[in-house]
């Protein structure tokens, strides 16, 4: 659609701008302020320049956290995106069943995040949880998310898949619904295989929603905090201590405001950069 040049449209956008700016810019400025000062209390603070940035960029604890975070987000995308596409392809397209599917799939998205943690905290326990009990007694796998680091890590991953795959699936489903029937008919006439239909019709039409899905899942999984915190408090050891939690501990627990603020800015830039890379990579093909 051709849009009209009209700077008066700013008046329509102004409320949004003010509202978001209020909640975004002031706290952001505060964080920037912290990141360049050393704060002891209200009255004594010193300007330290880029010291905090230098310090956090060399801190091995944060490096580990960052690495764990990247591996985790990568696994999340690797599982949830293909699974979500697969689910969307198998969902019925009309009638009662499709409504039912949609409603059931939305349920996990509507549960407060700490309750998601609670559900799995209960579900995975060896004594009172179905999953933990079944794994220990029927499959004879020694599963204990509270004691075994890899169990905890896998559990957090499974929680994320449980919680968020539906979002990917619903987005893909909406992309698929936008494809007119006639495309499938033409493909049948052209004797396209199922794979060819997927590759040349479904995937191209899902591209824009997939972009949204990948970005949302990357951002949210990169900022994961609540679920592992409720499940194990970041343990055992440091196995499920992701970036957000490391930073929260630094800022609120140890009151190392300066380094925490400095690193959170770095963190923000990383998310921005990766999102931008995803965005340009996925929209690049369209221009040619």
């Amino acid at each position: 659609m051709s849009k009209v040049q009209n700077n008066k449209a700013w008046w329509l956008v102004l409320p949004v701008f003010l509202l978001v700016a209020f909640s975004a810019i002031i706290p952001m400025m505060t964080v920037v302020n912290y990141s360049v000062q050393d704060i002891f209390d209200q009255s004594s603070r010193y300007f330290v320049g880029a010291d905090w940035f230098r310090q956090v960029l060399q801190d091995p604890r944060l490096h580990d956290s960052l690495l764990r975070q990247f591996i985790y987000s990568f696994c999340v995308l690797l599982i949830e995106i293909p699974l979500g596409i697969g689910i969307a392809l198998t969902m019925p397209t009309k009638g009662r069943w499709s409504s039912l599917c949609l409603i059931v799939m939305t349920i996990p998205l509507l549960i407060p995040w700490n309750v998601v943690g609670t559900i799995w905290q209960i579900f995975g326990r060896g004594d009172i949880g179905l999953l933990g009990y079944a794994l220990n007694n029927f499959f004879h796998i020694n599963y204990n998310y509270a004691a075994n680091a890899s169990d905890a890590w896998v559990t957090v991953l499974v929680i994320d898949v449980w919680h968020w795959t539906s979002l990917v699936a619903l987005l893909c489903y909406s992309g698929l619904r936008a494809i007119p029937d006639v495309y499938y008919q033409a493909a049948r006439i052209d004797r396209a295989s199922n794979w060819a239909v997927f590759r040349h019709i479904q995937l191209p039409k899902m591209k824009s929603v997939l972009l949204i899905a990948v970005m949302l899942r990357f951002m949210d999984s990169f900022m994961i905090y609540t679920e592992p915190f409720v499940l194990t408090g970041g343990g055992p050891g440091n196995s499920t201590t992701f970036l957000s939690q490391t930073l929260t501990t630094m800022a609120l627990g140890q009151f190392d405001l300066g380094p925490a603020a400095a690193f959170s800015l770095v963190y923000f830039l990383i998310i921005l950069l990766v999102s931008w890379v995803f965005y340009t990579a996925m929209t690049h093909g369209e221009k040619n």
Partner: protein
Amino acid sequence: MAEIRLQQLAHSYSASPSGPEDYAIREMTHIWEQGGAYALLGPSGCGKSTLLNIISGLLSPSEGRVMFDSTVVNDLSPEQRNIAQVFQFPVVYDTMTVFDNLAFPLRNQGMAEAKVQAKVQEIADVLDLQPLLKKKAKNLTADEKQKVSMGRGLVRDDVSAILFDEPLTVIDPHLKWKLRRKLKQIHEQFNITMVYVTHDQLEASTFADKIAVMYGGQIVQFGTPRELFEKPHHTFVGYFIGSPGMNLIEVKPEAGGVGFGGIHLPLPEALQQRLAATQWSTLKVGIRPEFVHVWDGPFDDAMCADVTYVEDLGTYKILTLNLAGQSLKVRLQEDKPVPQGQAWISFPAQWLMLYADEFLLEAAANQVPASEVPHE
């Protein structure tokens, strides 16, 4: 290449149809001969597209058989039927180039790449798509896209028939004409059976050798454009074809013919006998505006009608007359004098059609081939 035969075919979208009104296609038997160029003409909602989808196999008919030559293909999927279909809105694979689009059906059947190259080049030549071959299909204009859609059907040399479902709907008028001529050329060049669905009589008559007119889920007449014009087998054909359509007047039988509002229309002896032997509930006479004879003045048996309106359309005029309470359209050539106030007209016997329950009644025993008799 094949002859397409529909036998006692009927289709209903409801699982348990209770009456004729539940059927999108009422029972019909019809043959499309190999190599013909046919049009399927009818108003929207008459079942044209349903019939087309049944032939291509996208729909499975609820009753009857679809045969290609002597094989029943009811249970064959579209991909097994070797049918190409071009849809109302162009379907192209956005991410592929024009070349890959055209090559797609060939590659799907595993054709060797060298042969694919040759075939695609040939079709691109025919459709003037050569300069676009390297372009991404999504950047094409609507008519270019539609040409690509057609090309995907034409590129296959194994197709039994190509079906067109109102393919020129989205095309600009001046390009419509070009594309239609292109299709005609292609038909002559490749000798493939083509069925062309449309609601535009002009499109149908310029493209097709024979036109099937569909109405209410059945084919009411199948014939050349001339036959449809001169001898409509159904009042709908008379009304739908021609501009303006046929004049239809409800009449009652009288001695020696039929009549309405004090006007007597004599009928040939043989037709009178036929009428007497036929059961009917409504009786109409029909005459095309082109065939109503207008006399210069009072004359013998000519009937006197009031002129209510004259519409000048350049090369001809359309008169609206009132004849004994019935409105009548008459087409008058420009060289003829326009009658003032009153007109003296007569209906030449060979152009006066008699319809019993909307179907044409003819003097001799029904000469319509069996394949065209609509079954109620």
